[in-house]
């Protein structure tokens, strides 16, 4: 798969959609709570968002939280700049403020209070044991990505001039294999829309999905060794707008894990079977492809003869 290229612009206006992971498991259970609490993360996010909005008066930002119970939009800079009365039609693309005009509070307090509300709702549901049965421990990463892309599409259909869209994923939990298909679909849509996805991993491990996402869409993947200094990492790498990326060096990915997951059991596999019609991947042979319904009339072949080897890309 070829490395995605980022379309270049002559100015540095951009629309950034940030997906924040607020899964209580990673904040409490994976040992991050001690060194790096969610409050600290929120504070650093506020500074980062303020500095991003300050860079250019037309910069826009939207923040989506991804949790175990669902995703939600919690902030949209374009909407909050409209002011209490929407009388002026042509004023929507931005006043010069780095600070929102909403009510009497600044952007910081709005963001903090909204995130707090979503987090406490999630924690409440977690304590209540979920909707019966095993509580969901995985974050809806694909849901957040899809919501972000829908927002980008909506902006692209808005009035010109449009800023260049890009996404930033702040993620901590390990990959959820059952979300492989949905995440890959979201990623290919981003590639088509030419929206680069930057990734900042704050958990302890790499995420194969997000590595592939960053690589394919032409974004930057980063796993800061010290997550409590998140702000500095954010200011160094994802703050670069698409124009400046042509001129500044970015951290190169050490290596991308291109392994796929099978569609039937969601296990990561190196070697598998591929349907010749719809290209879905299976770990074991079956007569009928479950995705497209194509029927294979051949007798069950030996693994050596019939298996198509899925090679990891160089």
């Amino acid at each position, binding site marked *: 798969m070829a490395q995605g290229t980022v379309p270049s612009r002559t100015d540095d206006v951009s629309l950034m959609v940030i997906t924040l992971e607020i899964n209580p498991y990673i904040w409490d259970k994976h040992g991050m709570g001690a060194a790096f609490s969610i409050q600290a993360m929120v504070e650093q996010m506020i500074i980062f968002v303020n500095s991003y909005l300050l860079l250019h*008066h037309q910069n826009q930002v939207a923040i989506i939280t991804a949790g175990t119970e669902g995703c939600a939009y919690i902030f949209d800079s374009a909407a909050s700049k409209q002011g209490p*009365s929407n*009388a002026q039609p042509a004023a929507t693309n931005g006043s010069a403020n780095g600070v929102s005009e909403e009510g009497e509070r600044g952007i910081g307090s709005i963001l903090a209070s909204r995130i707090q509300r979503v987090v406490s709702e999630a924690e409440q549901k977690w304590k209540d044991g979920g909707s019966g049965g095993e509580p969901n421990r995985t974050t809806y990463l694909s849901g957040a990505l899809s919501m972000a892309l829908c927002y980008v599409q909506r902006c692209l259909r808005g009035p010109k001039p449009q800023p260049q869209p890009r996404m930033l994923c702040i993620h901590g939990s390990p990959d959820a294999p059952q979300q492989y298909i949905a995440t890959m679909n979201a990623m290919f849509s981003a590639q088509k829309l030419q929206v680069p996805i930057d990734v900042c991993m704050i958990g302890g491990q790499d995420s194969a999905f997000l590595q592939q996402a960053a690589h394919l869409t032409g974004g930057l993947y980063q796993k800061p060794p010290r997550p409590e200094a998140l702000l500095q990492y954010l200011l160094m790498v994802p703050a670069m707008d698409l*124009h400046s990326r042509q001129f500044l060096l970015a951290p190169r990915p050490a290596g991308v894990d291109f392994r796929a997951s099978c569609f039937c059991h969601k296990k990561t596999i190196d070697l598998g079977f591929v349907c010749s019609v719809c290209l879905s991947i299976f770990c074991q042979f079956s007569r009928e492809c479950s995705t497209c319904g194509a029927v294979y009339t051949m007798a069950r072949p030996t693994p050596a003869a019939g298996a198509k080897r899925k090679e990891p890309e160089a």
Partner: protein
Amino acid sequence: MDFIRYLSELPPVKLDRLYESHFTCQAVLRSLPPIAKQYVLRLLFIEQPIAGETMRGWAKPEALGKHNAAMERLDQLRVLLETGGKSGKKDASYRLNPVFQQQLQRALSGAIGPPKDPLPPALASHKPSPADLNAYALKQWESLLLFLANAGAPGGERRGDQEPSKMIKGLLRRAGLMGTSDEGGVRISDEGFRFLLMDLYKQLWVVVREYVAEIEDQGLDGAQVTCFLMELGFYPLGEPHGVNRLSSLQKRVVEDLASVGLVYIQKAGGQSCFYPTRLASNLSASLSESSTWQPAEGFIIVETNFRTYGYTTSPLQIAILRLFTRIEYVLPNLVVGTITRESVNTAFSNGITADQIVAYLQQHAAPQIRQRVPVVPETVADQVRLWERDRNRVQQSRAVLYEEFPSQERFAAVVDYARQVGALLWQNPIERRFVASDGRHDDIRAFIRNQSRT
């Protein structure tokens, strides 16, 4: 941007004092080139100096030119200070100006926002809506431009609208936009015509720059005024601010700005407050060179048959269109004109360039045709440029022709000398003749005499 040049020419102490206002810091950050902005962000929370080599390593090898330009700009504005380093630039290390850094950190953490004043009850009932503010700003600004445009109309007749104040007239004259005409009245200058066709931001900044210069000439503190203007740029739109907490200089500035349309003053019962309008809010936005925001809806449609349709009733816009098109019909909501060679030549003789005309048509294109690529048809744009070139078809320059050189070496030596001083216009080595501009004739003659002596 002239404002940046103004800042970089201030003495360091004054500049540091300016940076004590976090609004100025934010405005300066916005005006930097993109790479410089990134560098500032990276150094924002770092206290120790960073080696120059490290910073050079941040840029890709092929982008070294941009890196150097960014570093130079940061140095000019004293945002980046050099610390340590003995032998010039090799091992210099840099850090952010501490005052600048501190103010920016405070601003970014959201700890401080623009000041909010409670509205006195007497004025609360008459709070103007954003639409009112827009209308006021537009009216004031347009009356200023209309005054300028009408002064350029033949005969310079006043159209009976309110004349701008003496201060504004003084500003316009100072900026070189108006001059005295032969009969002793005022008429618009070439620069003034160019000014009319500029986009709103550049116009605003020309006026503001002249205003600051005027204040300085009167012996008052120009830096404080600049600070206040930066602050205005960050105030939220349509929010009242009390006049009482301003210094006397700032109060005067507010009144002057009201006559231009940047703020709206409301007075009732002995108290007054001012509202920044959209023009003021976008002051800080326009600092960077690449601002593509359109202040008002476009209204011009240009067709490939050179017809222009302007859907407007504003006398200012009609006056501007009259500068370079031949108006044919004036309807209640529409002005139809044609771009002809004659009309364009009139514009050229007034000092307007073809690029300005095309840029104006592009910026004010009506929304229906904004999607078209290119916005102005190529036929029209090319033809306007060709008409401009037509005026320069024959170029004349006062010159001196030199001939009858005794030898080829002598000829070559004199031609080289002429080329070095930049006077060589034409030469023919075979016939040993060359032409040089008249201004350097004495130097060349002296050189030839010297040559013949040796």
